[in-house]
């Protein structure tokens, strides 16, 4: 299967914002990210502190995404560390 390489823009909140020191992260096209799972592994390598979190979900267009979901440059992508509202 052929994928076009894309620059993935990711919104960061809570502890993931503190880990990266940014509220928006650009994942370069060279990283070859095409899926949610790929994004999570790339982040884990770049920021080992992400691996210590209780959980890390990815949201695509404000909905929780599955590991195999494909990422698109037009999507709004965000990291969702363990929530603690209420």
């Amino acid at each position: 299967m052929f994928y076009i390489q894309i620059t993935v823009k990711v919104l960061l909140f809570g502890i993931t914002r503190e880990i990266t020191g940014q509220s928006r992260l650009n994942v370069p096209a060279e990283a070859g990210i095409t899926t949610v799972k790929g994004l999570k592994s790339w982040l884990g390598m770049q920021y080992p502190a992400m691996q210590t979190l209780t959980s890390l979900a990815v949201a695509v267009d404000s909905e929780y995404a599955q590991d195999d979901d494909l990422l698109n440059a037009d999507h709004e992508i965000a990291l969702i560390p363990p929530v603690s509202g209420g």
Partner: protein
Amino acid sequence: MLIKLVEHIDLNEAYAYLNSTDAGAVNLFVGTVRNQTKGKAVVQLDFEAYDAMAIKQMEHLANQAIRKWPLVNLAIIHAVGAKEPGTPVVVIGVASAHRDASFEACRFLIDELKKTVPIWKKEFYEDNSVWVNAHP
């Protein structure tokens, strides 16, 4: 239904919104800032939300509740920003003809909100601070 994120919660607003002649019961749950966690004094809390997704996920929960129980109306209001102990940070309000539905739906909404709605709480103690639930 009324679903929103606010700087300051007004309990009267939720009740005024829900009270109607169709409802025989209005159930309000108010979550507030406690002054301690596991014996450590909490001096302040900061709530951060992913606004667009938080609203969308709260709408999903509201729709689930409406499908599950015969409700007249409901409200979900969550605060963001810095909060001191004693301050209300979330209000769930449910109006129904009879009390059982409003009690059950209210419980469902707060329990699910805590699991799925992207809002994060940072607790500040006298000597440090932590993002709640972030680490095992």
